[in-house]
């Protein structure tokens, strides 16, 4: 594998300005780095065990990675791929969200029913908040006032006041919530329910339910349609929902919450990432071990690229 990477590196000349998609490979303990211009894997970086949640700092100078089975969040230099240090994360970190202050990470500790707040500068745990069983989905509101944890077996979104680190509201959703995502202006929170097969949209002003989205793909039985990752375009037009073992991404109208179409990607699709101008989207296809590139104008899959085993998370840096 290393030899192959060396050969690849030697044979591909990198465009200086192109961005990169970073993909965490859950069962390979690696990250695959994809060049945005060539759409090829340019680097494979060895990381901790069972890498899942993956995000860049707001200035894209640092990568944070949940190494779930190493019980740590790794801090990685994206230029060199070197692990700079590790953050105390609590046990089994799965997903996390970075506060707009670029300093506080909110981490879901799946095995411990805890959300851990870490100061990435001091590398210190600031608070641990008791949440429901198997916390997973994490989000921080654009204004930084509220952090969200969704818990898979408790079936709730927990609304945490970031000033006090206290839960201020709990809202029930359908079975096994996996992911939470704010829209651009923070007025809506979208929460996917994997086993319930739905996405619940909340009005963040009063945590009331604004609507619920259901999915139906011709020829695919309902139980296979398992919403996981959610991404909302910043122009407010589209929402994309990764539908797990149905192997499709749903394209949803953000305003009307109507499902517009389904895009066939790889097997067991988990998460997505956009590039800078939101002209491309990458989807991680866990079972098929590849990622699919979707053209956001035509809303069609344009290319499939082999990465490591069980790609899970995706992040983009310009």
């Amino acid at each position, binding site marked *: 594998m290393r030899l192959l990477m060396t050969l690849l590196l030697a044979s591909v000349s990198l465009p200086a300005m192109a961005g990169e998609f970073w993909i965490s490979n859950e069962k390979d303990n690696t990250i695959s780095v994809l060049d945005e211009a060539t759409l090829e894997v340019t680097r494979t970086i060895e990381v901790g065990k069972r890498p899942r949640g993956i995000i860049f700092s707001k200035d894209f100078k640092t990568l944070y990675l949940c190494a779930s089975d190493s019980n740590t969040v790794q801090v990685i230099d994206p230029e060199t791929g070197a692990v700079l240090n590790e953050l105390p994360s609590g046990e089994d970190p799965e997903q996390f969200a970075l506060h707009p202050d670029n300093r506080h990470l909110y981490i879901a500790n*799946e*095995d411990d*029913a805890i959300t851990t707040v870490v100061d990435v500068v001091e590398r210190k745990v600031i608070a641990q908040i*008791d949440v*429901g*069983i*198997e916390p997973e989905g994490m989000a921080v509101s654009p204004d930084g006032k509220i952090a969200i944890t969704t818990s*898979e*077996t*408790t*079936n*709730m979104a*927990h609304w945490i006041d970031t000033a006090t680190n206290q*839960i201020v509201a*709990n809202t*029930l959703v*359908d*079975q*096994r919530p996996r992911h939470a995502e704010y829209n651009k202006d923070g007025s809506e929170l979208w929460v996917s329910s*994997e*086993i*319930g*097969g739905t996405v619940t949209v909340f009005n963040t002003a009063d945590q009331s339910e604004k609507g619920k989205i259901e999915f139906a793909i011709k020829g695919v*039985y*309902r*139980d296979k349609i*398992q919403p996981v990752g959610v991404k909302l375009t910043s122009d407010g037009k589209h929402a994309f929902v990764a539908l797990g*073992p149905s192997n499709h991404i749903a394209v949803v109208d953000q305003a009307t919450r109507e499902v517009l179409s389904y895009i066939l990607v790889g097997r067991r699709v988990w998460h997505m990432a956009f590039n800078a101008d939101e002209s491309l989207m990458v989807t991680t296809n866990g079972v098929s071990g590849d990622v699919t590139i979707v053209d956001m104008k035509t809303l069609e899959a344009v290319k499939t690229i082999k990465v490591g085993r069980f790609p899970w998370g995706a992040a983009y840096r310009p």
Partner: protein
Amino acid sequence: MLKTALLPAAFVAAISISVSTACADIQVTIGYLEKQVPAPPVLYNLDEIPENEGLAGARIAIKDNATTGRFLKQGYTLEEVVIPEDGDTLAGARELLAKARFLVVKAPAADLLAIADMAEAQGALIFNAGAPDVALRDADCRANIFHTLASRDMLADALAQFSVSKRWTRWAMIHGVHEGDLALKAALENSARKFGLTIAGQKEWAFDADMRRNAAQEVPLFTQDFEEHDLLLVADEIGDFGRYILYNTWAPRPVAGSEGMTASTWAASVEANGAVQLQNRFRKQAERGMTAIDYAAWAGVRAVGEAVTRLNTTDPAAIRSFMLSADFELAGFKGAPLTFRDWNGQMRQPIPLSHPRALAAMAPLDGFLHERTPLDSLGLDKPESKCTRFGG
């Protein structure tokens, strides 16, 4: 937070675990009742039968419920009663039913029915976590018994679907002489008929020799005269002789049923669909792997918790009708929501087909369709079931 009280009694060991919050608006008490049964001797000496099989699953689930309940001001208590082999089952059940209207029961079918038919059990809701008997989902069903453990016919159908999908259409079968072995044999025969498989030969295991010494000599001869078959099935529910069949057969054939690839409600090698989390949580507390009976007890307690969460009531009648409705769903780490069949109270669920090291497949297998859900291709379907106590 964890309060344990020992209640001395001549015929039962009763323990109460309360994981409720002090300021709860709603208090839910769930009873766990186990009737201990003698374990028949087996050839192999190293099997460990966990003493708290079932109970350990209920304890994990009550904690799961309580964690969720904390956010909704709902408290949960598990009352545990274990009745020894010579104990009075109905007296234990009576004591428990005075405290709890929801019961998870691990007991043989006859005891389960006797409990369900008690005057005190009318209006209560019982979850069967220990008896796989088909009759309990058929003519012997009760309106107050739901089944979270898969029935033998569901397991046999899962094996048959796997065989069909592999085009292993000819079975041979070796069965033991215990009641459970014969029941499993009957279920496998039914499944073979249902899915168009041929049973090319059957033999009863009637040896009393110690197979640790001579399995290598006995089993090849014992299996030599089977007609041509693709898969060798073993019906040996107590784990007596089946393990000595593997690798000792005359013809090189895979083994399934009670040994080799097994169909079960839950298995230690299930890891996808978040199952790792349940397995880890269980192992941390019980210091062993989670079995099918642990899972069934977990699912019973969780089903009550899920219904209370959604309805905010402890009324068994309201909870019963909610569980039988299309609105009830429970996430159970098997890749599909768990629901209840409204004609016999059986929990619909995927069935893992596994060996000790990995999952081979999850039933229903692709391509086995059904008008309601592929899950109903496993076990007694509505028109087949003679259960009439669910209004069917």
